[in-house]
């Protein structure tokens, strides 16, 4: 029986520019905002605290069960804390709901998120709790003396992962799980086409094999699979595709200070290449065609690029599948790094959920939230959750534990807990942590990311629809994308977080007039009072 993963509705289109300005208005013209959080000297165990945790799972029952168990175990340790779980399957939906709830001061206490999204949340005054003070607190901090479980020390969190949560001079989150992207390859077909997989995939290799795979017989069936359908190369996240290609090329995307460099000549060249292979039908995307895993498993795709956190859907023996068993074909799956321009200097994105804490009136409630966040970093939670997909734990403590090492060693022992593709995907990241990178975080970085993907999506769609792809097309694509994501408004409305504060931009004209009028009125009143005093002095009665 086929099972269904829901099509993701792109919520990211709730633009950071719009959200940012809405939140700025909330902060500046509405409530005063919350007071900055201060760590209480002692956690009040005699009081009851109820906290809400908005979590993301990959539509995976085991992940839900792990969250539930983590909460139950934590509540046993802290009977005065109740954690209410709300589940999401889409980061974008969480982002949308958080923004809506910031405006009404009803944010969750703890929330799974991406750093890009936190940058937008930060436009609300003191909404997100900076964590460095909590990290270092001797009593309740990481590895603190009064923490009732074996929490990791700060040094035990993989430094690179922790740094991904630092921007604007503060740590605004802790990493929860990490993944990267992997190319899941139908090795059987690659070899049937007369090729041998190189040690590191290159873009040239993938394009070449993909074009060769497009050969058909007289009846219109693809020679490689004997079917009517074959899309040799499908990319799930085209934003990642563009970002990683630019990084590998050493070309611009954005700067730490929020300067937008995406719309450059290298991007254009890459889009021309994408167009060439979309035209032959050798390349498509998730948004245009469907999940790469469905095509891969049906023998209709050779190179499927998706997150390592999607590994359990990949391959003939994948434990999870959306397509019926009779459509799945037999093939050997190879788990490889994403293609590179320079195989000697591989670069790949680091991604995966992080956890942030929202500020509340009661600092005790925030402290309760922090204790729960710390619990998510314990070996029990880290190892259990990482085993559900091609995730890796974010602490050395978990990665080096005997339990986790045993798990890695048992790769391929069965097609469930030790599913080979899943464990190979996790190992891929473990072996390449130093080759991973993240993009700069600023208010608007989420929109820029969406724009990067949209350039590819629109190019592919246009080619399929028979439109001409030339410089005029590219010029219009750039201007339309900038306009769609309001990127031209970002620099004035929002600011870099590198400086640690958001620039509010120029005051609106109406505000200038209003403030000028007020200032003018005050000047006139002062002049009048002064004149009256002088007059009184000159003519004392």
């Amino acid at each position: 029986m086929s099972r269904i993963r829901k099509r993701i509705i792109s919520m990211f289109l709730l633009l950071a520019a719009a959200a940012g300005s809405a939140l700025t208005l909330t902060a500046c013209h509405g409530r005063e905002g919350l007071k900055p959080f201060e760590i209480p000297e002692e956690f009040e165990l005699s009081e009851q605290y109820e906290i809400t945790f908005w979590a993301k799972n990959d539509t995976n029952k085991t992940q839900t069960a792990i969250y539930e168990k983590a909460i139950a175990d934590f509540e046993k340790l802290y009977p005065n804390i109740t954690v209410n779980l709300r589940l999401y399957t889409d980061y974008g939906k969480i982002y949308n709901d958080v923004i809506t709830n910031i405006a009404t001061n009803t944010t969750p206490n703890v929330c799974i998120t991406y750093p890009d999204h936190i940058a937008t949340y930060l436009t609300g005054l003191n909404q997100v709790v900076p964590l460095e003070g909590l990290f270092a607190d001797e009593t309740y901090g990481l590895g603190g003396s009064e923490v009732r479980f074996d929490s990791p020390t700060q040094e035990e969190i993989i430094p690179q992962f922790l740094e991904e949560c630092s921007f604007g001079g503060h740590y605004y989150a802790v990493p929860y799980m990490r993944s990267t992207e992997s190319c899941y390859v139908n090795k059987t077909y690659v070899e049937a086409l007369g090729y041998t997989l190189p040690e590191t995939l290159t873009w040239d290799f993938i394009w070449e094999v993909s074009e060769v795979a497009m050969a058909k017989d007289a009846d219109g069936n693809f020679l490689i699979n004997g079917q009517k359908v074959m899309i040799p190369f499908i990319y799930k996240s085209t934003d990642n595709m563009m970002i990683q290609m630019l990084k590998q090329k050493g070309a611009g995307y954005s700067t730490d200070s929020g300067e937008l460099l995406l719309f450059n000549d290298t991007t254009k060249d890459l889009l021309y290449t994408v167009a060439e292979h979309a035209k032959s039908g050798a390349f498509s995307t998730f948004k245009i065609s469907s999940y790469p895993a469905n095509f891969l498993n049906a023998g209709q795709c050779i190179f499927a690029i998706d997150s390592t956190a999607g590994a359990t859907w990949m391959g003939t023996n994948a434990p999870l599948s959306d397509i019926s068993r009779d459509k799945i074909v037999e093939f050997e799956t190879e788990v490889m790094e994403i293609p590179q321009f320079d195989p000697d200097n591989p670069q790949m994105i680091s991604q995966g959920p992080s956890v942030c804490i929202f500020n509340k009136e009661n600092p005790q409630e925030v402290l309760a939230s922090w204790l729960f966040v710390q619990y998510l970093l314990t070996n029990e939670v880290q190892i259990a959750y990482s085993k559900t997909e091609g995730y890796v734990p974010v602490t050395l403590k978990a990665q080096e534990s005997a339990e986790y090492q045993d798990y890695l060693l048992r790769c391929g022992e069965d097609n469930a807990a030790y599913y080979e593709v899943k464990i190979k995907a996790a190992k891929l990241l473990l072996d390449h942590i130093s080759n991973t990178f993240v993009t700069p975080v600023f208010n608007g970085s989420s929109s820029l990311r969406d724009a990067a993907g949209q350039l590819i999506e629109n190019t592919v769609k246009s080619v399929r629809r028979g439109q001409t792809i030339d410089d005029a097309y590219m010029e219009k694509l750039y201007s339309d994308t900038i306009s769609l994501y309001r990127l031209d408004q970002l620099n004035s409305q929002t600011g870099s977080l590198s400086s640690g504060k958001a620039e509010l931009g120029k005051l609106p004209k109406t505000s200038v007039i209003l403030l000028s009028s007020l200032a003018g009125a005050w000047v006139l009143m002062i002049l009048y009072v002064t004149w009256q005093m002088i007059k009184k002095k000159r003519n004392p009665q």
Partner: protein
Amino acid sequence: MKKFTTLLLTFVLALACVSCGSKDGNTKDAADVKSEGVMTYAEYAAAALDTEVVVETYVQAKQSWWDNKATVYTQDKDGAYFLYNMACSEEDYAKLTAGTKIKVTGYKSEWAGEVEITDATFEIMNGSYIAAAEDVTALLGSADLINSQNKFVAFKGMTVEAAGKDANGKDVAFLYSWDGSGQDGDDLYFNASVNGQTYTFTVESYLCDNTTDVYAAVKALNIGDKIDMEGFLYWYEGVNPHITSVTAAK
């Protein structure tokens, strides 16, 4: 005057009920003739993927609106059109009530087997049509079912089967999300059988959220219940009906 108004309202209501419950079950535009340059359903069905299409169709249900994009189930007397992420202001979305005639220009696309119109724009026209549910129970499992893709359909006399197991290993009649990983408010999945074959049905939470009658009805199902269903014949790697009504089998 009050009596007259009451009588008038009663008459109008009765007329509406007769109309909705009639064999045809639809209020048909007197002249459901396509305007110039507009495709018939047959022409639309024959059109190649990724080509521009222009159709006149009638809103049957709305699934979602977000960031000036609407996803809508539509149908004319010959076939159905699923409009995915059609450009639509929030103000216009409110005008898209069931039966509203619209002229749609977009591209014929396919996503995981679902044929739909994407990157579309629309204009509201004069006319109204609400399709009656077409009974496709006999077509379940057959290759002909796809010819009714996206239509408002009915499944009759089906038996509720186990959808999965709960945490205690006990069979349950429905799941939150496809594997039970969800919560109240998420899509509901349930199984029902006819002629010895079991099929999966979905209450799509964007279309029918947890405040709707159908959501409550599915949550109240018991394994073995005999039910009639109505919904839209959506497709995802095979048939994946989005159910809008579940009642005890008649």
